[in-house]
């Protein structure tokens, strides 16, 4: 047994309102630079829909992730090492900018500069790649809220087996949002595809990062990741990906997307797992077994033997303690309501999802029935094969069973809590119908519905004697802009990179736990990477109107 720790996330899809706050704040923190205009480390997709980049889930086309060979071993779907090196001069599977979208801005200057005339001047869209006028035909979220779904949604890859039926019953349509970040996989195919070995998995917390100094721009990771969560910075010529906000995680505060999530639906915590079993688990024969086999890799932090092995593997005690309190562990293993996204890619993803009950609830409510009645809900889960089949295609490689079980638990929780909210005793029979006790059901409800910050995010700091070192970053001068160096000569981004963290994160952590706000905490410079959700740093929001009038 080789115990390793993994920082993991669970998202409760029922609570996502599709506001895109997470995407926008992530962009502000990480990808608001030239070359990353089209890069969304976090994006929120409307499902059914095409996703970003368009139809990324069609691995027949993109060949991302792993496949199980006949001899039972795993191989990269796009081919082994030799094939990778031979196609290095032109990666045949790399999405082009049209599969994402061509980034643009508007020519605002004409609005100000245009001479007086009878017609209003227009700010025309200009491509950020070529500077030419362009017509906008697609973007990161073109099919938001099923926009144009008559045209697009039917080509959703996940409708593959159920396509016919859906077209017939499109009036009974359903919809939910799927926020996505990098999965920080246990068996990352992006890292396996990188010829330079620049992508690595941190052995402390499992975060998958691209070493910007070692990346040589071979672009194999971009096609290697089945979730298409590595992007190519077209200005610096290097790959970039979601960092799980590691500078924040190191001091124990959640990622920017979690911090700012309006629905408070994200949970972050540690998972302990047996690194020796990962490959074996990722190579089980039947796609349908992948969900269970991945769960079997996780180790119970309450098990004394696991604790001994963890200590032997050098995992600090406070991390094991954090793993015990991990909300992610509870959702995945205790309540078993979280499911992995696309386990069939065999990368062992570590951002899991609680599938939404809302498509079912909505339909019951629309037909005028009681959407909190256990009987109605169970009957509907039984009857609504299309949403269920769709969710199964997303989360269990098409296996209806686990999705069905989760939805039943969520439905039972609704019914159980209705009784309590109406002042009655909870009916334990409801809980037992889905194999849980009344207390468990209530605890699960608490975690899903009203858990506070400290319960949703259980993040041990990077080991104490290392954490203080982050203070060193505060001595860096934030004025040296991104890149610096010899831009004209070698192209954008040459020179030594500016470190991602330019403020003092230790100070941030203190603020996080302080009772009231210090004056002018950020010296007027808003850096969302460091914003902890407290207070209103100047410049983040427009001035309040009343204040203005006074």
């Amino acid at each position, binding site marked *: 047994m080789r115990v390793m720790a993994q920082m993991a996330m669970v998202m409760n899809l029922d609570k996502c309102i599709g506001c895109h706050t997470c995407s926008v704040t992530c962009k502000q923190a990480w990808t608001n630079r030239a070359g990353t205009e089209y890069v969304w480390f976090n994006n929120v997709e409307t499902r059914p829909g095409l996703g970003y980049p368009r139809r990324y889930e069609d691995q027949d086309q993109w060949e991302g992730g792993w496949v199980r060979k006949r001899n039972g071993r795993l191989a990269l779907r796009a081919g082994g090492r030799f094939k*990778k090196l031979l196609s290095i001069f032109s990666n045949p599977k790399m999405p082009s900018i049209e599969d994402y979208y061509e980034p643009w801005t508007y020519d605002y200057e004409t609005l100000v500069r245009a001479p007086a005339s009878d017609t209003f001047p227009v700010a025309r869209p200009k*491509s950020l790649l*070529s500077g030419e006028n362009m017509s906008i035909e697609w973007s990161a979220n073109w099919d938001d809220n099923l926009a144009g779904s008559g045209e697009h949604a039917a080509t959703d890859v996940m409708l593959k087996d159920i396509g016919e039926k859906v077209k017939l019953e499109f009036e009974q349509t359903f919809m939910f949002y799927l926020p996505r970040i990098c999965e920080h996989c246990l068996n990352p195919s992006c890292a396996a595809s990188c010829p330079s070995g620049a992508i690595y998995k941190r052995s402390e917390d499992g975060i998958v990062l691209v070493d910007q*100094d070692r990346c040589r721009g071979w672009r194999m990771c971009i096609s290697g990741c089945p979730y298409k969560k590595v992007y190519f910075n077209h200005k610096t010529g290097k790959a970039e990906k979601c960092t799980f906000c590691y500078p924040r995680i190191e001091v124990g505060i959640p990622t920017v997307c979690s911090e700012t999530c309006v629905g408070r639906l994200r949970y972050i915590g540690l998972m302990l797992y047996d690194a020796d079993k990962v490959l074996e688990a990722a190579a089980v024969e039947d796609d349908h077994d992948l969900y269970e086999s991945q769960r079997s890799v996780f180790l119970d932090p309450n098990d004394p033997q696991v604790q001994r092995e963890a200590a032997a593997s050098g995992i600090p005690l406070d991390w094991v303690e954090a793993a015990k309190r991990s909300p992610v562990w509870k959702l995945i293993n205790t309540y078993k309501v979280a499911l992995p996204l696309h386990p069939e890619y065999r990368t062992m993803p570590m951002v899991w999802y609680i599938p939404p009950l809302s498509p079912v609830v909505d339909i019951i409510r629309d037909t005028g029935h009681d959407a909190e009645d256990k009987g109605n809900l169970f009957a509907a889960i039984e009857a609504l094969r299309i949403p269920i089949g769709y969710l199964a295609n997303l989360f269990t490689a098409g296996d209806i069973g686990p999705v069905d079980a989760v939805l039943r638990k969520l439905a039972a929780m609704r019914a159980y809590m209705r009784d309590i909210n109406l002042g009655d005793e909870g009916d334990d029979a409801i809980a037992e119908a889905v194999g849980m006790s009344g207390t468990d059901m209530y605890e699960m409800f608490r975690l899903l519905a009203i858990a506070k910050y400290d319960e949703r995010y259980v993040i041990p700091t990077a080991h104490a004697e290392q954490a203080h070192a982050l203070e*060193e970053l505060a001595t860096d001068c934030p004025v040296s802009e991104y890149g610096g160096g*010899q831009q004209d000569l070698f192209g954008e981004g040459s020179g030594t990179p500016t470190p991602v963290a330019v403020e003092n994160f230790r100070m941030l952590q203190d603020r996080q736990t302080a009772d009231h706000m210090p004056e002018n905490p950020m010296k007027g410079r808003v850096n969302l990477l460091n914003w902890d959700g407290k207070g209103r740093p100047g410049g983040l929001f427009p001035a309040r109107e009343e204040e203005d009038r006074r």
Partner: protein
Amino acid sequence: MDTFLWVVFPYLCLATFVVGHLWRYRYDKFGWTTRSSQLYENRLLRFGSPLFHFGMLGVVGGHVIGLLIPTAWTDFLGIDDHAYHLVAVIGGLAAGIATVVGMVILIYRRRTVGPVFSATTNMDKVMYAFLGAVIVLGMWNTIAGSILNLGGEYNYREGVSVWYRSFLAFQPQPELMATAPIGFQLHAFVAFVLFALWPFTRLVHVFSAPLGYLTRPYIVYRSRSTDRLGSTPPKRGWDRVG
């Protein structure tokens, strides 16, 4: 003059090449990349880039054989001059044509595809000019010298190659170059300019050919480094205590 052209100047270029790379690696690892433009455009690149690069690998291989292996060795193996040149010309032509066709496609693409053109730095343009010149001159030497036999018989293996080996051995014999045909002289001269420019262009990516990929384990694990904390090395004078 000959001494300058075929002794001083080549050594200057070689020194720039070596020191330049050391400097660039030391101070600009972040800028060390292929600067691929595949994201912008793929239809032309899909043909142009493999043609050019595989052609180029052939050309480089041919140069290594032609320049570094003395005639005596091939004689010893019993390969006569005629057979050698037949192989060299056919191989060289095939690789050369692939390179030139690929290069033409790539340069056409770079000029006509808007996003690719606007991502082209001045240094890129200079580099393209010299690289193109070297390739065209090299092709000319092959075609004019070996096939059309313009300007009489010239066996570079007794001239240019010997000079090149003497140059690498730091016992240069400039007279060998001075008597070579003008085509060879130009080709060598421009090539040395290109070597001097090399470390300052995107050509550095040649030295990152990721052969280690064939042997390393698929998944790389790394610890946060313990000798250095945070993402920047500490400033001088700020040593850690304890």
